[in-house]
C-alpha cells in the first residue's frame, strides 16, 4: 500500500516538474516544452528559455526540496521534537552570516563560492543550537529548542546586520540571496552541490531504522542493540550536508523541513523507514508548486519561493503548536 503511494507521489512529482518547466513570465505551450527537452531547434528563444532557465530551476527545486524535506524529517526524529526545522533552529541564520562573511571579507562573488560558507555556517549553528537546547535534565524539549533557535538567530542576524551596514555592495548581493529563491540556480552550481545532496540523501534514507529506535527513547534503543552515538552522528552529518547544500543553492527557505515530515507522518504513521522516502518526494512537490505559484500570482514579477513557503508554512506551524499534545514524537 505504502509502496504504491510512493509510486503515485513519483507521478505527481513528474507533473509538478512539468508545471515548473512550463509556467513563468514567458508563457510556453506544452509542445514547446517537450520540443526543448528533445532539443529540436537549438536557436529558438522559447526552447532556450526552457533549457537554460526553467530546467535548471526545476532541478534546483528537486534537489533543494528533497534535501530540506529529508533533513527536516531526520531532525525531528533525532531531536524527538515536532518543531525541528532548519529555519526555526537558526541554521539559516548561521549559513547567512557565513555567506555574508564570505562575500564581504573573502570577496566571494559566485554562488558556487557561497556553498562552502553556507555549509560551515549551517554545520556550526546546527550543532551549537542543538547542544544549547539539549543542556539540562529534560533534554531538548520543543520550547527549549525553538527558543534557542530564535535567540541564536537574533544574535546572528544582528552580527550579520553589523557587517551589512558598513558594506552596501555586500548588502546589495545579500538581500537577494536571503529571501530564498530558486531563480538564480545555475547548472554549474548544481553540479557542485549535487554530490553533497546525493550523499546526504543516501545517509538520511538509511537512518530510518536508527530513528525508529531513537523514537523509543535512548534507553530502549540501547537495549535493542542500537549504537546511539553513531546514530546521532550519522543523522547530524546528513542534516548538515542537506541543509548546507539546500541553503547554498536557494538561500534560506524556512518551514518546508517543518511541514513535510508531518504530512508524511499523516500518510505513513510513525515508521521512519516510510516517513523518510515520503518526505523526500512530498517536499519537492510542495516546493515546486509553491515556486510556480510565486511566478503566477505576482506577474510580471515573481514572489520568491522562500516567501511563499513562509506564508504557507507559518499557519501550519501555528496549527501544530495549538494541538494539545505537542511533545509526543
Amino acid at each position, binding site marked *: 500500500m505504502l509502496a504504491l503511494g510512493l509510486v503515485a507521489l513519483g507521478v505527481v512529482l513528474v507533473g509538478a516538474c512539468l508545471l515548473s518547466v512550463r509556467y513563468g513570465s514567458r508563457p510556453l505551450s506544452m509542445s514547446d516544452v517537450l520540443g526543448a527537452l528533445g532539443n529540436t531547434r537549438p536557436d529558438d528563444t522559447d526552447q532556450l528559455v526552457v533549457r537554460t532557465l526553467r530546467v535548471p530551476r526545476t532541478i534546483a527545486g528537486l534537489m533543494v526540496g528533497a534535501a530540506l524535506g529529508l533533513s527536516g524529517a531526520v531532525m525531528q526524529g533525532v531531536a524527538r521534537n515536532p518543531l525541528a526545522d532548519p529555519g526555526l533552529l537558526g541554521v539559516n541564520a548561521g549559513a547567512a552570516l557565513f555567506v555574508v562573511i564570505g562575500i564581504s571579507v573573502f570577496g566571494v562573488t559566485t554562488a558556487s563560492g557561497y556553498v562552502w560558507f553556507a555549509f560551515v555556517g549551517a554545520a556550526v549553528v546546527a550543532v551549537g543550537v542543538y547542544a544549547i537546547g539539549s543542556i539540562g535534565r*529534560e533534554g531538548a524539549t520543543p520550547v527549549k529548542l*525553538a527558543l534557542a533557535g*530564535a535567540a*541564536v538567530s*537574533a544574535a546572528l542576524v544582528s*552580527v550579520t*546586520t553589523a557587517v551589512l551596514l558598513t558594506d552596501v555592495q555586500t548588502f546589495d548581493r545579500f*538581500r537577494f540571496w536571503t529571501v530564498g529563491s530558486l531563480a538564480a540556480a545555475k547548472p554549474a552550481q548544481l553540479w557542485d552541490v549535487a554530490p553533497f545532496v546525493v550523499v546526504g540523501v543516501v545517509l538520511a534514507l538509511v537512518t530510518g531504522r536508527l530513528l525508529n529506535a531513537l523514537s523509543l527513547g535512548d534507553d530502549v534503543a540501547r537495549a535493542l542493540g542500537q549504537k546511539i552515538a553513531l546514530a546521532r552522528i550519522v543523522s547530524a552529518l546528513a542534516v548538515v550536508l542537506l541543509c548546507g547544500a539546500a541553503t547554498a543553492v536557494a538561500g534560506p527557505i524556512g518551514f518546508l523541513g517543518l511541514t513535510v515530515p508531518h504530512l508524511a507522518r499523516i500518510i505513513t504513521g510513525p515508521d521512519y523507514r516510510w516517513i523518510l522516502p515520503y518526505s523526500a518526494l512530498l517536499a519537492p512537490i510542495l516546493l515546486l508548486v509553491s515556486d510556480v505559484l510565486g511566478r503566477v500570482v505576482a506577474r510580471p514579477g515573481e514572489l520568491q519561493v522562500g516567501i511563499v513557503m513562509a*506564508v504557507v508554512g507559518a499557519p501550519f506551524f501555528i496549527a501544530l503548536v495549538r494541538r494539545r499534545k505537542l511533545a509526543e514524537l
Partner: protein
Amino acid sequence: MAVLDHTPLGLVAAPTSTSAVVGGRRRRQARVVSVTASLLAVLFALFCVALSLGDMRIPILDVVRTLVGAGDPASDFIVRELRLPRAVLAVLTGAAFGLSGIVFQTLVRNPLASPDIIGISFGASAAAVIGIIVLGLGGAAVSLLSFGGALVTALAIYLLSWKNGVTGYRLVLVGIGVGAMLSSVVSYVITRAEITSAAEALVWLTGSLNAASWSAVGVLAVCLLFLVPATLVLGRYLRQLGLGDDAAQALGVPIERARLALMLVGVALAAVATAAAGPVAFVAFVAGPIAKRLVGHVGLALVPAMVVGAVMMLGSDLVAQHALPSTQLPVGVVTGIVGAPYLIWLLVTTNRVGRGG
C-alpha cells in the same frame, strides 16, 4: 558595586522570628533602593559624557552648567538642541524596552521571552519597511506605522495562542512562528527596493537614534507618562502570576484579565520604544535579568530594569557614535554585539538548571 554589599547583616543582634522577616524585607528594599540609586548615578554620568562628546567637545562642567541654565549661548545650542534630544530619547527608549522586557519575561516565566524574541518587533519592522520602501514615507509616519504593526502583531499572536486561556508556552511558540513569517515579508520588501532606500530600511531595522528630535522625545514622553505608572501598578499582579497560575489563583488574582492587561502594557511599551528608535536588539531582553541579578533575585525589579535599559541604550549609543571615527553606527549594532554573547550564556545556564521550559 561595593556599595551594594553594605547590608547591615551583622548589626541585627539575636532577632525574634517576626522581626527577622521584617528586617529581611527592609534589607531587600534597602538593597533595591541602593542599587537603583547607583544605577541612576551611572546613568547621569553617562548622560553628561554623551552631552559632552561630539564634533565639538564641551567640558563636563560646562555641560552641567548648561543643564542648570547657566551656560554660554554656543554650548547652550549644541547641548540643548543637538545632543540633548538624542540622549533623552536613548534614556526613554531604553527604559521602555527594559520595562517591557521584564514584564514579558516574568509573565511567561521564561528569561528568553522578550518582545524582540517572540515576534512583536518583527511586526513593527514589517510595517516600517513597507512604509519606507513601498509607501516612501519617513519620520513620524514610519513611527506611527511601526507602532500599529507591533500592536496588530501582538494582538494576532495573542488571539492565535488563545485556547481556553493563553499559556506562556503557546504564546512563545506562536510568536516565533509569526515572527518567522513576518521576517520573510521584510526580506521580500527589501528585494523590491532601490539599494539606497533598502539601506535606509536596514538602518531602521537595526535600531538607530540618528533621527532623534524634540518632537519624537515629546511623543514618547507622553506615552510613557501613562504606560510606566500603569505597569508599576499592575506589577502587583505580575509578582503573583510569577508564582504560577495555581498559586496566583489561590491568591485571588483574576488570571486572564491580569495577564491581558500586563500584556497590553508590555506590548505598548515595546511598541512606543520601537516606533521611536526602531527594534533595537537585546535591550528588552537583557535589562531584566541584569536588574534581577543586581538586586539579588528578590521579587520584581521593575524600576531597576528600566534604569538598566536606559544605561544600556545610552552607553551603546555612545559607543556606536564614537567607536569608528568615520561613520556613526546605528545603536542596534552595538547592543546586538554586546547582547549576543550574554544571550548564549543565559541560554546555557537557564537550561542547565532546568528552567528553560
